């Protein structure tokens, strides 16, 4: 009797689970997975969203489809896009989110909110600012994969070996929420048929303020993280350049006079290999000269860049966090007031490890 009751209970529970516990299915081939999304400015209240979907064909080739919709809420745009799509739209495989420069100037905080609130969005998502309308960039097709994957591969590759600092959604949010540092994003532009990374867009809070000068990109990345595989174009004289490759760098912060007015000294160590020269022998003396020159050039570039940050009241390098970690009872407000006036010294030390197989 007891046994029968138990068996009945178990069957009832399983019946309940299978009958009422069902959850909506997202079968892989019945959904449209957004791979990139772009936001454009329409007017003060309305944004235009563009979604890119890869279309997987049975013969293993990948097509591309773009949808556009405008609304006040970005989730609402997804809904509108869904109305135009033959399959359910999901955003779990989102790789890249683009914001047009114009929109970024107005602030992207609210749009970021939808990304971080949604658990299905990856922390490794790449954010970028576009020089022109995001829709224009996304509606074209590049390479053999869909635009989203292409963009993410482009950005990732440039982060690994190029001059863009490694920077995904998680790091963006870290700097965005931090009072002591400001976010930045890669800037994407179109050049003819192709898209390329133009530089770095600097933010104050969630607003775009300025893009980084092209020649500051190397020192920016070197001061932010360890460069592992960089290249540097050293200008000797007019039209005389040297390419230093396989650069890896290390930097150290030193903070003095912590209590009142901090003074920051950054020591930068650069190791590299000469790969290409234009009209220059590479004997011992010349190498010594190159070293000196490069040190000087890096120092001027760096100081210049930091000065410009201070003028704009932005801190993408996170100098504030560096000082905070060295000062007890650190006061945020005091630091923020001080920031434009503190002295930052940059000392570079360059080592040329090899110079290739010929002298």
């Amino acid at each position: 009797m007891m046994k029968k009751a138990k068996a009945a209970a178990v069957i009832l529970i399983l019946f309940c689970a299978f009958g009422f516990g069902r959850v909506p299915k997202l079968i892989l081939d019945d959904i449209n997975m957004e791979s990139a999304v772009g936001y454009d400015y329409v007017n003060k209240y309305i944004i235009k969203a563009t979604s890119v979907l890869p279309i997987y064909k049975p013969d293993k080739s990948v097509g591309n489809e773009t949808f556009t919709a405008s609304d006040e809420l970005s989730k609402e745009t997804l809904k509108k896009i869904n109305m135009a799509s033959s399959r359910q739209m999901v955003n779990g495989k989102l790789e890249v989110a683009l914001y047009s420069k114009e929109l970024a100037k107005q602030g992207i905080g609210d749009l970021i909110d939808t990304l971080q609130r949604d658990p299905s969005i990856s922390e490794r998502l790449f954010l970028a600012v576009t020089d022109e309308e995001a829709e224009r960039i996304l509606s074209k097709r590049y390479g053999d994969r869909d635009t989203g994957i292409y963009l993410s591969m482009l950005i990732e590759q440039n982060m690994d070996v190029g001059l863009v600092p490694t920077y995904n959604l998680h790091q963006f949010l870290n700097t965005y929420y931090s009072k002591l540092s400001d976010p930045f994003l890669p800037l994407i532009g179109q050049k003819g048929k192709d898209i390329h990374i133009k530089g770095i867009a600097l933010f104050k809070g969630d607003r775009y303020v300025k893009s980084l000068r092209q020649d500051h990109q190397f020192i920016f990345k070197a001061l932010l993280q360890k460069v592992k595989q960089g290249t540097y174009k050293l200008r000797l004289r007019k039209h005389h350049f040297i390419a230093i490759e396989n650069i890896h760098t290390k930097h150290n912060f030193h903070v003095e006079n912590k209590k009142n007015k901090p003074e920051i000294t950054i020591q930068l160590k650069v190791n590299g290999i000469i790969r290409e020269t234009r009209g220059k022998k590479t004997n011992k003396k010349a190498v010594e000269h190159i070293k000196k020159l490069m040190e000087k050039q890096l120092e001027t570039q760096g100081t210049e860049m930091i000065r410009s940050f201070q003028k704009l009241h932005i801190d993408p390098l996170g100098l504030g966090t560096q000082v905070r970690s060295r000062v007890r009872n650190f006061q945020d407000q005091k630091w923020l007031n001080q920031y434009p006036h503190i002295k930052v010294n940059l000392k570079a030390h360059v080592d040329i490890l090899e110079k290739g197989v010929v002298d």
Partner: protein
Amino acid sequence: MKMWFRKNPPKREEHTLFDLILQYKKSGDFVHFHNPQTPQPYWISYFGSLIDVEILHRDILPYLNRTALTSIKDVKKILPFEDVLITSERQIIEDALLRGSVLIQLHEKDAACALVRAEMKKSREVTIPEEEYSVVGPKEAFVESITTNLNLVRTRLPISELQIREYTIGSLSKTKVAVLYIEGIANEENINTVCQRLENLEFYQILDSSFISQLIEDNGNSLFPQLIDTERPDRVAGVLAEGSVVIIVDGSSHALIGPISIMELFNAFEDYYINWQMASAFRLIRVLAVSFSILVTPIYVAVLTYHYQLIPKDLMVTLVSSRRTIPLPPFLEAVILELTIELLREAGARLPTKVGQTIGIVGGIVIGTAAVDAGLTSNVLLIIVALAALASFTTPVYRMGNTIRLLRFPFLLMAELWGLLGIAIAFLFLMNHLLRLTSLGRPYLEPIYPPRMKDLKDAIIRLPFSLQSNRPHFLQPQDQKRFLKNKASEVKDIDE
């Protein structure tokens, strides 16, 4: 054991030996004849289908015809048999006749008679093991005769401590069942459990050792085998020396080993014939194969039905484009393919070997390719299901392979319901089931839980013999030590 098997066959109403013979005479193969020409006339009766006629003609009839018998006891003197039985007890006579003895009487109505064993020995030759085939190591397998089987074991363990207890089980089959153990090594409790269960066993027919194992297992409702059946006498000898108890059943070419732990289901006995590194690697592969076999199709279903985020972008193209034209949801697709594989296996098992192979090839290649071409299944799933089926055949114990193949279906169902979470829930159920399970009262998950480091030496991996100086702890052997560690394990310096 079970209520409805307790009924004995109807009681016969005869009283004297003569009545018994009359009763038996109803059966066509019963021979009962009188030889009046000899110095002393006698009656002889036997089952023609049970006895060896050659023995009768060569060793019994000539002697009886030659000599004059004064009393029935003289039969003992004249016949060249060491165990001629003189008795008048009905029960013994009945048993002996039915087991192939020849009954000799001086007068037809005599109560006393002589019983001479002349049963026909009809056993197959000892052959190569088929289920537990091994490339290295001995190649003898058990046959259907209990005497041969016991012989195969005893020659491997020529010690007086090897004890055999015999039982006769089955109200109709009267099957001989022998319990083997080594005194002084095997734990008394284990022996008693086995003997107790066998004594309490009431069943009408024991045709094979699997009957016994189904009837005395701790949990008859479990999918998992709680006793291992083996056809290798070397394995039996090996586990006896570790302290296990072995059951050998007449008419069955498989011996039963108990108590076991789940890890032993992954051990081929061949592991002991190759060096320990390889054996360990093979065991690990088997464990991985089994987990793979159970989990891979459910994970496929779960990920494709619910968790598209998990798939890396480079794999996405392969997966989505292979599924683009498939009309069925992943769950149905998987179930249908799994059933097809089961179908092939079942058809192959029911057919003679050669035809079976053909079926496998035809089914595997033709149906598989056609199904993919027709767009009924995705080729990714086809690969997964085929691999999973292959992996399920790596278990050295045949019954375990069946268990694995069946286990996959509840996992599939749960994967369909709640994706990976469903798999985790099914896994929790399985774990708890295994925790509950015992084999002859010993924990089934042993070296894992209760965790015993010492037993891990010969569970998922097999360490060299020199490190295996102790018998497995879960058998609770009376004598823990296998051998004493000698100086070989001393650490030596260079050139010493």
